């Protein structure tokens, strides 16, 4: 597996198509991050596209190629917040919103939403590992390759993230 840094440098050196690999790798984490803000799968997908295009446009401004993931997440969050602000006010007044338990199409149920919110709150390094491992379905070995870390580190970060998530969820249940 090629690391993020290698892919970013390849794109910067003119191989534009390589950016597709980065999009593929991060599409789900990006969607997840957008959903945390927007609470709607369709909107999240649109925001994800915008975030990728913006990342591509500003890739030359990225100081460290290895931090592509966290950087992309920041862009996504900013795009999502902007989109949320632009969303028509009526949504907030929509009577269907009065029954949040009722799952609408393209929305996560309450439990998953809580879990997603907990994932987003994780420290940057752990969040990235969790997102790549579970959202993008990479093996721990692959995640290590993508992030340029050792397998041991990734495994440790995963177990720490699990513990942290469990704590967060338990606290929120109380």
């Amino acid at each position, binding site marked *: 597996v090629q690391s993020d840094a290698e892919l970013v440098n390849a*794109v*910067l*050196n*003119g191989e*534009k*198509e390589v*950016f*597709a690999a980065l*999009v*593929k790798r991060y*599409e*789900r984490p990006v*969607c*997840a991050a957008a*959903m945390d803000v927007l609470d709607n*799968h369709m909107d999240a*997908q649109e925001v*994800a*596209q915008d975030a*990728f*295009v913006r990342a*591509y*446009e500003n*890739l*030359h*401004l990225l*100081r460290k190629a290895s931090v592509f993931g966290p950087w992309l997440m920041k862009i996504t969050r900013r795009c999502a917040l902007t989109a949320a602000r632009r969303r028509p006010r009526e949504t907030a007044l929509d009577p269907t919103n009065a029954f949040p338990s009722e799952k609408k199409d393209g929305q*996560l149920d309450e*439990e*998953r939403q809580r*879990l*997603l919110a907990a*994932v987003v709150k994780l420290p940057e390094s752990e969040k990235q590992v*969790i997102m790549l*491992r*579970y*959202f*993008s*379905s990479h093996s721990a070995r692959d995640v290590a390759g993508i992030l340029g870390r050792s397998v041991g580190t990734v495994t440790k970060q995963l*177990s720490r993230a*699990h513990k942290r*998530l*469990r704590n967060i*969820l338990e606290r929120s249940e109380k």
Partner: protein
Amino acid sequence: MTAKSNIEEKLEELGRAISSDGSIVENVMNRIKAKSLTGPHAGKAQNIWRKIRKTRIAKLASAAAVIILLVLLNRGRDHVLWADVSAAFKRVDCVHIFMRFTNEQEGKVIGTEQCWIRKPNLYRHEKSITTGNVVEKTVIIDNGVEKLELDKKAQTAQFSESLQDILPGPMEMLLFVKFFREPDTTFAGVKFIVSKIRQECTREELAFDVKVLPASGLTKAQDQSKCKIWADKKTLLIRRVHISPKYSGLKDASLRYVFDYPDIDPNMFSFNIPEGYTELPKKVRPVVSGVVQYPDGSPVADAKVHIRGFPFHHLRKCRTDEAGRFEAKGDYCINLRFPIRLCAFPPDSPDLAAWTIITDPEPWDKEDDYPDFPVPECGNVELVIDPNGRAFKCERATGIVLTMEPALQITGTVTDQASQPIAGSKVRVISLKYKRASLGWATYLLEITDSRGRYKLTNQPVCRGAVSLTLSAEADGYIPSEKEVLLDGSLVYEGVDFDLCKAKVGIK
């Protein structure tokens, strides 16, 4: 263990819930291609930029460079000097100037002056002054050779010689203050200091302040006068000038020039005398002429001749030819008023000088005149008689004989309070005292002290009857000092020393 697998399961479920139909990759790549985004700029320049952004020092250095560049650009934009405005004015071929005098208290227009200038030397000037119900109007047309004056009230026309050879140019004649010379230069005894008034500059106009200082630096600070000039920011051409009443000489009046730069019809400068006008005989310029000779009667060639009439600061200089003859023409603006003083200095003898004074043969008030003046031979003096039958100025003074006599020599040193010599200080005679009167007698023979602070004033005419001479010494950064030298009949005065005090900051 179960808890762990539980959270893992939940995460896997969440991952599945955030499904993607794979359209994102396709859409993003299509958008990138469709927009033909320049995106991540590959290439060396980009890499260099990335490197610059990487280190803190490089970042600070680039920020400093940007700030310096901005400061420089800003300075450049703001760097319009009076010299630029003056140069723009000089490049213009046609100028029309409208001048208006208004009574400051009543706001009433008491007179207007208009001037049309077409380079190189066509000049028309119209002046009208209202006194009560009477409007006096005069027109002057000057083509650099001849000058025609039309008086509407008297219905007269009179030709005379052009004055443009005396004054630097017709426009400067009109703008009687020599604003359009380079700033900080000295002319006719005054110094012009032009500075930008930043707080009054707008997007369209630049504002300049003109200070007029006596060049001698001896006059007190409150004597300086001011005028303001506004220029167009784009063309740098002068839009208007406002002269303070104090400087214009008009009490309780404000004087305002308004400039425009149209193409002027050359017919405006034709010498046509309107019907019904009486042509007066051609006016002759005042002339002072004569010879300079040694005591034995032989001519002094290449001698400097200084002629000074009233007002005192006006000096006409000329030199004698091989036969010792000199001739100086006056102008109509500053007439040869009494007393007229003439001095002549031989080119190579420091101990000789010649002088004479032409006094008023019929003084207004005998008591106020200078009865102690010995009146030497003046030759033929033609006087201008005023309507009351009195002579008030000299029209022509010819046949003046200036004979060399032994001259005074004054020596001394200029030091500071610590007795250290001041090199480069200026020493000159500024006045001459008689028993009952004092006379400004700046011979313009200036001496500059050497490295040891010494000076030697030579060629000072012995003015019979004079009681004392007053000398002044001045140097940059010191307060000028004056000293009186009592004349006891001898020709050499030594040890006329000056101690100058350091001036406070800002005083020259």
